[in-house]
């Protein structure tokens, strides 16, 4: 390995780390601004212009707050909980392909922390490790609310992990590879997976919300029932780690959604952009600039999904626990199994579009149900009047 390649690679690793931390930091600001916008109020606007220094002020507060470990708690596990949550959150962004390649001295360097051949399995595994952080922290607090929050989180995450895995399998059947980079490269141009896997996308999106413990699935930290949920006893930096880990997870899941279903750094007309840039600026600069454009498009997609996460948070109310379990086990898992079977049959028949049949079926069933439900309430209304 040449020295320049090594330097570029280490810059990329540092950049991946820094970018995910920076985006997570500014997600907290964006969340408050978007919440403010949706609720028709100004939001943070004192620290710096547009309140842009607010995340830094928050971080400062985290550093200076007193931190205490409850007497009854298990001290080491109490510290291990947030650390594990933070660590697993930091590890996932390593395999996300942020862009195509960069040419340095004639050598191609991929804009990605590392391209491992089992990328999606790695993401899947690390994400499922994430629940240990919540579980350990909640249990170690030795507080009834924390314990309830922790077992809720564990139960919810494992339930939605299944549907998530099954929706990924449908993608893998089409791509035939576990590497995230290969999956992205197959979606060249406008050949995005969303057009072939609409059901998988909806299932994956729902499960991503549940895995990140975001509204409408934020029962582990449901403040109306459980005070602060699993982080009731946490304060200062450790609380900050839990909240920060949540935002990093949100960033990573937005990135994975963009990679799996929305073509990553691919966009329509990318070949034309690359050709004309190379024609104007020469191979080196042209190629690198084209990669930069692709990376920016990818970040655009990520920001859209982060916005979507926040939009949903301030739009939908929280699920009840039995509804959550019903949706996971009786709704999403059978749907995901059907999706896998249909995708397999479709691939055998030579079409990738068979998944749409499922969408049509679901829409049909929902329409019929909505129609009969209305009739039933009308009939009940007539009965009560008589």
């Amino acid at each position: 390995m040449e020295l320049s390649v090594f330097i570029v690679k280490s810059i990329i690793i540092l950049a991946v780390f820094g970018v995910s931390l920076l985006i997570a930091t500014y997600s907290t600001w964006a969340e408050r601004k978007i919440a403010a916008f949706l609720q028709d109020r100004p939001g943070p606007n004192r620290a710096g212009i547009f309140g842009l220094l607010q995340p830094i002020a928050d971080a400062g507060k985290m550093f200076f707050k007193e931190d205490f470990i409850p007497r009854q708690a298990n001290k080491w596990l109490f510290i291990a909980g947030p650390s594990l949550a933070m660590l697993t959150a930091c590890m996932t962004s390593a395999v996300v392909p942020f862009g195509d390649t960069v040419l340095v001295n004639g050598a191609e360097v991929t804009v990605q922390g590392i391209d491992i051949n089992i990328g999606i399995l790695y993401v899947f595994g690390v994400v499922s490790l994430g629940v240990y952080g919540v579980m350990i922290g909640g249990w170690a607090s030795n507080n009834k609310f924390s314990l309830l929050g922790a077992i809720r989180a564990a139960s919810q995450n494992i339930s939605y992990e299944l549907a998530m895995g099954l929706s990924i399998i449908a993608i893998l059947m089409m791509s035939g590879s576990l590497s995230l980079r290969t999956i992205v490269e197959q979606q060249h141009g406008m050949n995005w997976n969303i057009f072939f896997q609409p059901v998988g996308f909806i299932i994956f999106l729902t499960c991503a919300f549940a895995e990140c413990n975001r509204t409408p699935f934020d029962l582990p930290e449901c403040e109306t029932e459980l005070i602060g949920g699993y982080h009731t006893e946490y304060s200062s930096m450790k609380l900050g780690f839990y909240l920060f880990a949540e935002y990093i997870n949100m960033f990573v899941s937005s990135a994975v959604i963009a990679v799996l279903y929305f073509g990553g750094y691919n966009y329509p007309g990318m070949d034309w952009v690359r050709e004309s840039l190379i024609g104007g600026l020469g191979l080196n600069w042209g190629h690198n600039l084209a990669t930069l454009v692709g990376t920016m498009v990818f970040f655009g997609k990520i920001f859209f999904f982060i916005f979507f996460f926040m939009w949903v948070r301030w739009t939908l109310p929280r699920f009840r626990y039995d509804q959550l379990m019903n949706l996971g086990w009786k709704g999403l898992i059978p749907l995901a199994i059907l999706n896998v079977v249909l995708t397999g049959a479709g691939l055998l028949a030579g079409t990738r579009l068979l998944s749409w049949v499922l969408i049509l079926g679901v829409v049909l069933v929902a329409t019929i149900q909505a129609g009969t439900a209305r009739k039933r309430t009308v009939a009940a209304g007539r009965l009560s009047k008589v």
Partner: protein
Amino acid sequence: MQSGELSAFGTILLFIIGGILFFGVAMLTARLLRPHRPNAEKLSSYECGEEVAGSAWGPFNVRYYIVALVFILFDVELAFLFPWAVVFGDHKLDVASGGLWSWYALAEMFIFVAILALGLSYAWVKGHLDWVRPQTRPSDWQSKVPAQLYDRVNEKYKSSR
């Protein structure tokens, strides 16, 4: 792979070390900066201001345990499906077997998933997937305010809405 080159999981290790360094430094800095004045009240567990009643490390609802058990079953299914999904559309295998490979793989998966779907439906029928729905009891409390008062208020503000 050449010697001296970082292997794929070596980079992952770098990321893990980076993560540990990040939270280690943050924790240490916070520890140096923040005040430390604990007292008995601060160190007691939070129970809405009441005296702490016992430990939380007791038994909890058995349903969480059942969910975990059913999860294990399906997680193993997933672990088997991942490698299957990767080789399912393999063109080389398809050509080598004269186009039979995909049919064989699909049929095999159908049987495998069907057995597991049977397991899911068993758990479903047996009610292991049912979470207890909160029973809301209507209150038997009778308001002394006559209902027509509310109607009058509603009538009054109807136009402004």
